[in-house]
């Protein structure tokens, strides 16, 4: 029973991911006074790409073909860490957050290599910029999670979520606010959203994530796009699980699960609205201001870790 629930949650994260993208795009369009495409558009695009032919550059090696596949595998594995509607996940209680962050790192590593294998200038450019951003983003990501882990004295995601669930919703601690601030900034950087990277850009010189995908086409591109959608969805779900798990089902009753699922949809919608507002309002940071952005996130997360000392004792 429990494992069925866990698998269903994982499937929700994987299959719902394109929808999240579609809805965000729609919200953004509305904010910019456009009609916007259908929210199901990402699914159509995935199907279209999956039916197309796969092209590889003549200079590339096996790495080019393997990279998207491995990226997809890692991202799915990351999604298996995150509880959605029920306080459990396939890997949630066994694997801890270090594993989660480093699995994302493995996916990124393989995609960067794939980009470099294309043999064009843009792949290298994207990979080089991604290397900078991701190596700096890892600091606030881990430290923010460390602060929460210290508070809950657990290192596994499910344990941390279960602990938060038992707290009073009104008793916001300093640590939670600071950790949320830093992790929210990290999510923007990790998923390549607006102040850090423009997900809709097609101007080569401003691309970071998109630059790495330039040589990919057909099913390979579909896998990468799907993986980045899953990553976005999983990150949002992680924020919800860590900072607003209230309403999540802990038992096995069907009604509890159904309400928890509805609540999850509501919470995710709130985050999507927030994201689209940020994306519409904020201008993309210059490349060399991104380290400052992440430095601020690191400082805030360090402060969160320091504050655990006074909150806990």
């Amino acid at each position, binding site marked *: 029973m429990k494992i069925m629930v866990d698998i269903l949650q994982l499937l929700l994260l994987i299959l719902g991911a394109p929808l999240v993208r579609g809805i965000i795009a729609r919200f953004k369009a509305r904010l910019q006074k456009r009609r916007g495409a259908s929210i199901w558009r990402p699914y159509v695009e995935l199907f279209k790409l999956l039916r197309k032919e796969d092209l590889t550059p003549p200079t590339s090696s096996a790495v080019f073909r393997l990279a998207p596949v491995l990226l997809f595998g890692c991202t799915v594995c990351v999604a298996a860490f995150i509880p959605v509607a029920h306080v459990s996940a396939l890997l949630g209680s066994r694997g801890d957050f270090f594993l989660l962050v480093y699995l994302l790192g493995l996916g990124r590593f393989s995609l960067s290599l794939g980009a470099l294998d294309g043999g064009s200038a843009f792949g290298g450019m994207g990979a080089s910029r991604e290397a900078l951003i991701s190596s700096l983003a890892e600091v606030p990501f881990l430290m923010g999670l460390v602060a929460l882990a210290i508070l809950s004295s657990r290192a596994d995601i499910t344990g941390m979520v279960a602990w938060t669930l038992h707290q009073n919703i009104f008793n916001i601690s300093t640590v939670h606010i600071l950790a949320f601030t830093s992790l929210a900034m990290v999510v923007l950087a990790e998923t390549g959203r607006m102040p850090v990277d423009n997900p809709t850009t097609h101007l080569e010189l401003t691309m970071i994530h998109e630059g790495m995908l330039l040589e990919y086409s057909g099913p390979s591109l579909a896998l990468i796009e799907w993986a980045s959608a899953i990553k976005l969805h999983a990150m949002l779900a992680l924020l919800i699980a860590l900072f607003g798990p209230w309403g999540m089902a802990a038992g096995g009753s069907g009604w509890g699960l159904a309400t928890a699922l509805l609540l999850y949809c509501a919470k995710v919608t709130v985050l999507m609205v927030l994201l689209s507002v940020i994306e519409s309002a904020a201008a993309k940071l210059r490349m060399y201001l991104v380290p400052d952005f992440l*430095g601020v996130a*690191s400082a805030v997360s360090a402060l969160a870790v320091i504050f655990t000392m006074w909150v806990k004792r």
Partner: protein
Amino acid sequence: MGLVGIATEKILSSFSVFLFLTIILLAVARRISTSVLLFSLQSAIITAEVLATGFQEKLASAYLVGILIFVIKVVAIPRAFFVLTKRLKTVHDVKASTTPSQSVFVVAVMIYLSYAAVHSYGGAVRAPGDSLAAAIALILTGAFLMVSRKKAVMQVLGLLVMENGIFLAALLTTFGMPLVIEIGIFFDILMGLLLMGIFMFRISDTFEHLDVSKLRRLRG
């Protein structure tokens, strides 16, 4: 306990967190207008704190002080700043000599220091540790802003942030000063602000900029 009671308790228990957030944002802010808005927000948080204390301690004079703070620090001073910057036609940038992330690290260290200082005194002071630490952190951050921002406007703002901290510390350690002194302090600040405003006009008239770091001629 009614709704007001719950709100009071929440304000008292978590206002220091929000004060910390405002000073972190002040360290990040790159525009003068943002900094002024943040100062106004910070003062609003302190207003809420004063009103909550007044409600809890049943002090009528605290309400008066709260209203005074609101009028002067949340509305009047920020407005004066906006008018001032508009009249001075100065550039929006605060001209920080440290990058945002460096500033935040400095502020983080200051928050840590103020916490450590307050905790080392332990029970010697009656005030709740969090809030007193927030007050000291405000003083330190104000000083840091004055040191690291080159615009004369920001020096005034730093002074005001410091004053916020001093006011908060006084409020927390004495649980409400005599009203006369409070009003005296406000008057003091208003006069100071007036003087600074005049000074800034003079500076920008004479040197055609507001960059303090270029005022080397003062050395004589």
